[in-house]
């Protein structure tokens, strides 16, 4: 089993993602500079957080148009796993791997804080180790994380089980107050048309070890590993 973490100019959570996969989960993982392209088959590719290309034009817009993303789209099309975290989520949405866009927070400031998420889907390769409706604690750190879907699509994603995570309060209720960036229907984790792609604004790699305040994010990586092992 081998994971890859892509690095664009301005990625800054690449080593965190690598650390969790390699050191915490004990899985082989390559850091790949985008210009080197993806030249072998990986079981999973992670698009890490950061500020690729300084968020010029729109967050993720420039990275999306680099040739390596054609490799990522092909990899996803073959049914292998793609996880986009934060800037990686913005890139995933810009690439059309999931519908919608992550844009400027309703209150346009950078938010860096712990949030509660309700696990909405427990059958995907990313969420099988969570319980349905479970409330987990994972941090967010973004200014462009408000999820906007084309009209009617947000509800459809929820109905079809393609929403992995929603912002909620400690009791697991999705309220406007527990929606830090004003995302549509509190949505912050979206699965692709097939469930082998997940993009999410919260940072599971920053909550994968108890010493960091929460290890709730670790089960996301454990779910991916379990899925790959059972294929």
């Amino acid at each position, binding site marked *: 089993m081998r994971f890859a973490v892509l690095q664009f100019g301005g990625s800054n959570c690449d080593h965190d993602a690598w650390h969790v996969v390699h050191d915490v989960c004990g899985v082989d993982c390559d850091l790949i500079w985008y210009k080197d392209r993806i030249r072998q088959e990986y079981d999973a590719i992670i698009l890490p957080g950061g500020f690729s290309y300084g968020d010029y*034009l*729109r967050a993720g*817009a420039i990275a999306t*148009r680099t040739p390596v993303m054609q490799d990522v789209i092909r990899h996803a099309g073959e049914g292998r796993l793609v996880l986009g975290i934060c800037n990686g989520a913005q890139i995933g949405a*810009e690439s059309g791997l999931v*519908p*919608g*866009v992550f*844009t*400027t*927070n*309703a*209150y*346009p400031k950078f938010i860096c804080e712990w949030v509660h998420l309700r696990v909405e889907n427990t059958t995907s390769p990313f969420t099988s180790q969570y319980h349905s409706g479970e409330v987990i604690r994972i941090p967010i750190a973004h200014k462009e994380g*408000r999820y*906007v*879907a*084309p009209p009617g699509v947000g509800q459809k994603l929820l109905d079809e089980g393609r929403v992995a995570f929603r912002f909620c309060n400690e009791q697991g209720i999705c309220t406007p107050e527990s929606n830090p960036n*004003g995302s549509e229907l509190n949505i912050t984790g979206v699965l692709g048309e097939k469930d082998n792609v997940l993009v999410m604004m919260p940072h599971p790699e920053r909550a994968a070890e108890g010493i960091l305040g929460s290890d709730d994010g670790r089960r996301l990586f454990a779910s991916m590993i379990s899925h790959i092992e059972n294929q």
Partner: protein
Amino acid sequence: MSFIGKITISLKEGMLDPEARAIQHALSNLGFETESLSTARVFYITMDVPTVGDATKRAEEMCERLLANPVIHSYEIEVLE
């Protein structure tokens, strides 16, 4: 021939514009009460193409493929000679 495409990217009607809201608030702090305020981004792109029509078509393609995100944006193109 050289043409300048003036491309204006705006948020679609009804889309929340948090930046505009913050600017409107700041204007209000300065005593400027405004009925509405929206933001847009303008690109001036010089292109060497045979006709105005070609320049427009290229600018459209640029909007569709990069400059605008169709989920939230609309765009207007004006070609200046």
